[in-house]
């Protein structure tokens, strides 16, 4: 699981066990330019004529090494990518070794962790890589035995000729195979023959993780490197006026104090010495923009919803007429606070800017962007900059940004020394790039039969960009629809946070649908299914989601949770499409001393083919825990431009005692993988909010739920209701019949 340095070619050969020869097959399928795989020899790599990061290699001892190009942050890509290769290769999984590839844009075309996109993007490429190598090994064996290749089969790291009982290991064939021409079109396996894909396969990094190996960016050490911490402005909308660093500079272990841009960098010989000295730098700040507080935003949201400058995102039919003629109008507003990403490993990056080039090492979701930004900042060409990707102690979108890498590079260039910049937890929570705070206003028009004939959504966000997903459900299912937004530009920096936008839009929308279904006197699931049916039969404008997949997860979760038939359970339903996948959830809530306790969440996910069942379950369970924790407990607020919550004592994250039972089901429909790192998170808040309504008759409309007045000072006796009071859905009738 080590990251290898681009220059250490010998090290590479050692790591892959290739010093004695073997098959090195270029993974150049990753490259947009080269579609034909190539065989690479040891001499070529040793001479530096070819890059070596993108290769699948089979050593003579049978060891198979696969480079994983994408940053690993817990989505388990270092296990699932090689599984796909090994499946087609018919490899012995126990002999597969995985190495993290450094940034190599010549060999890989999407070295990014984000958007739940890695497996969907690379699925075919990886399968082809494995199948090509297998094809060559089989030809090598057939030639050795002088038999037709059609009579040979590949099995668990061996090529077998059943007629004669001949059997050769991949290691024994690797060298012969490397001399064969590379086939262009190879046959891929039928999914019914998959042996690894769809099974529970353990994380390849488990042993290193549980024994405390230094896998992460913060663990990186280079002999002679310095440690640094930067004091950034404590409040957004301020800049440095003056710096007095005399006392800090005189502290033991401190090598330098450097002010650049709005940062004062304290550089020293150890983390603790730097941490202590930084507190002694006296910095005066002055106003440099709006100084904003959460209380201002709350007022602003309300006025901007009415009077802000609107950008229309989607308009179908005539909403004015629909609302004018409506039998019933439902109007509701939902609000979500800023959130910190707070990955467990705080931001950090190592940089060594030298005359002959730049070396960067650290945990990043976007190594290519980090290098590009460094190149631009320092005026050094990209080919002079290497970037090694360490394991990431979480990302959640925070590490899509490159600020913490470029500041390390800038500091190294200023002090002319190798340096690792470390953020404290407080730096991380106060230093920006948050999930934006947003308020939504929903309006629904129902006709006399309870049909949804008009729908309006307006989102107002702080640096949120477009806080809607205008082409998502229910667009396409409603004749008259208007989706627009207003954006407030603020000095408070925001960024993508796991399942960007949908991580809070889904809660608001799915809770509102529950309100509308109840107002229409319809079962909430049947209400959605009816709308989906309408979108299928009489689509309004473009429908950019897969109706059948959304219906599929809806029906599956309803069946598994005993929706509408389970006595005494207060259930809430939610379904959402994000990125490319569909997840439906049903939450069950009980009230305890006037406060909601989430007992269980059922989930049905359609992510296409499940690659690693263990990892996939983790993504769904973790996504639910993440979604629930942030919906119920977490918030980041501002006072005079500064974050109020600065560490885990005041910023609440979910902990073990609070987790509900989670039951995960996958729709196994055989379509190609559509990604799972994010899609399980968005539906959770809605499933819980709707279950709270089922349990109490109260709507929670603001996150975090536990700070709603009704739960902060619980005085009401819970009024337990059940979904069975609503008409049964046709789905339930069908199931019973």
């Amino acid at each position, binding site marked *: 699981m080590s990251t290898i340095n681009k220059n250490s070619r010998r090290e590479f050969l050692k790591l892959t066990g290739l010093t004695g020869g073997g098959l090195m097959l270029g993974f150049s399928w990753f490259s947009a330019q080269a579609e034909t795989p190539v065989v690479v020899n040891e001499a070529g790599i040793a001479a530096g004529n070819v890059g070596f990061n993108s290769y699948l290699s089979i050593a003579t001892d049978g060891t198979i090494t696969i480079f994983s190009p994408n940053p690993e942050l817990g989505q388990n890509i270092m296990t699932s990518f090689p599984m796909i290769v090994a499946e087609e290769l018919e490899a012995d999984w126990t002999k597969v070794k995985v190495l993290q590839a450094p940034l190599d844009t010549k060999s890989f075309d999407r070295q990014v962790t984000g958007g739940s996109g890695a497996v969907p993007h690379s699925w075919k490429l990886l399968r082809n890589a494995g199948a090509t190598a297998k094809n060559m090994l089989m030809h090598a064996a057939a030639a050795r035995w002088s038999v037709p290749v059609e009579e040979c089969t590949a099995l668990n790291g061996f090529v077998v000729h059943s007629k004669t009982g001949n059997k050769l290991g991949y290691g024994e064939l690797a060298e012969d195979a490397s001399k064969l021409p590379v086939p262009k079109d190879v046959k891929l396996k039928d999914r019914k023959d998959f042996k690894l894909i769809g099974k529970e396969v353990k994380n390849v990094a488990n042993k290193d993780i549980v024994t405390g190996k230094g896998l992460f960016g*913060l663990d990186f*050490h280079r002999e002679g490197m310095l440690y640094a911490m930067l004091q950034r402005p404590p409040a957004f909308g301020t800049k440095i006026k003056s710096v007095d660093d005399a006392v800090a500079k005189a502290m033991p272990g401190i090598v330098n104090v450097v002010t650049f841009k709005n940062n004062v960098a304290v550089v020293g010989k150890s*983390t603790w010495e730097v941490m202590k000295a930084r507190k002694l730098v006296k910095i005066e700040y002055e106003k440099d923009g709006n100084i904003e507080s959460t209380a201002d935003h709350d007022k602003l949201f309300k006025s901007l919803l009415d009077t802000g400058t609107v950008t229309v995102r989607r308009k179908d039919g005539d909403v004015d007429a629909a609302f004018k003629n409506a039998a019933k109008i439902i109007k509701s507003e939902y609000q979500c606070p800023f959130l910190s990403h707070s990955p467990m490993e705080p931001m950090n990056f190592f940089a060594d800017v030298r005359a002959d080039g730049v070396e960067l090492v650290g945990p990043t979701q976007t190594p290519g962007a980090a290098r590009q930004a460094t190149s631009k900042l320092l005026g050094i060409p990209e080919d002079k900059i290497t970037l090694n990707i360490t394991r990431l102690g979480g990302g959640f979108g925070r590490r899509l940004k490159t600020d913490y890498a470029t500041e390390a590079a800038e500091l190294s260039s200023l002090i002319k020394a190798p340096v690792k910049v470390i953020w404290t937890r407080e730096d991380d929570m106060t230093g920006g790039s948050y999930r934006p705070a947003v308020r939504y206003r929903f309006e629904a028009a129902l006709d006399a039969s309870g049909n949804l004939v008009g729908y309006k959504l307006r989102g107002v966000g702080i640096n949120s960009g477009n806080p809607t997903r205008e082409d998502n459900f229910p667009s396409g299912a409603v004749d008259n629809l208007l989706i627009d937004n207003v954006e407030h530009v603020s000095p408070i920096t925001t960024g993508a946070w796991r399942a960007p936008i949908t991580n809070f839009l889904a809660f608001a929308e799915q809770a509102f649908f529950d309100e509308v279904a109840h107002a229409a006197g319809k079962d909430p699931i049947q209400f959605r299914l009816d709308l989906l049916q309408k979108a299928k039969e009489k689509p309004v404008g473009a429908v950019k989601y897969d109706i059948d997949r959304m219906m599929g997860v809806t029906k599956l979760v309803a069946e598994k949770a005993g929706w509408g038939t389970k006595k005494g359970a207060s259930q809430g339903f939610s379904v959402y499409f994000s990125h490319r996948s569909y997840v439906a959830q049903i939450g069950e809530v009980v009230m305890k001393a006037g406060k909601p306790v989430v007992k269980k969440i059922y989930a049905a996910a359609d992510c296409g083919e499940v690659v690693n069942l263990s990892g996939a379950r983790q993504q769904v369970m973790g996504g639910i825990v993440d979604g629930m924790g942030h919906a119920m407990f977490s918030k980041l607020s501002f006072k005079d431009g500064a974050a109020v919550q600065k560490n885990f004592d005041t910023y609440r994250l979910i902990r073990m005692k609070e987790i509900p039972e989670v039951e995960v089901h996958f729709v196994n429909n055989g379509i190609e993988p559509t990604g799972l790192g994010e899609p399980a998170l968005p539906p959770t808040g809605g499933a819980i909010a709707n279950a709270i309504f089922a349990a109490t008759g109260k709507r929670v409309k603001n996150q975090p739920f536990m700070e709603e007045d009704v739960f902060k000072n619980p005085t009401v006796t819970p009024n337990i209701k059940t979904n069975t009071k609503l008409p049964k859905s046709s789905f339930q009738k069908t199931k019973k019949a």
Partner: protein
Amino acid sequence: MAIFKLNINGTEHQVDVAEDTPLLWVLRDHLGLVGTKYGCGIAQCGACTVHFNGVATRSCVLPISSIGSSKVVTIEGLSPSGEHPLQLAWNEVDVPQCGYCQAGQIMTAAALLKQKPHPTTEEIEGTMHGNICRCGAYHRIREAVKLASTKI
């Protein structure tokens, strides 16, 4: 600065650091034992948990001057072969996602099992409640502690 003699994972070490230096940073910066993680620095997340005379302790707030001759065990020293029942259970249940908090989780659980080899679910939850896993792997952490408790 002062010289401190430390017993870590059964080995004597000597470091020359300021007396208020937390054990966490001595382990990480001075001894190269980076398995113990920094997460919050205020004893809230548990990523830095080590055993201090057998008791699960947050090393981020433990000044080096308070250690004396006490025995410190870190994740690197939990089992020489890396096969403590918890480490095996962690793999068996396939617990880690990003993996960053897991050393602290395992050290917290190891101290619990040492004191109480067969804890109830409530006791496991009560003990592990202090350790944050941002990936939300709590279900499997709980399951792995239970599994390990059957092997002790």
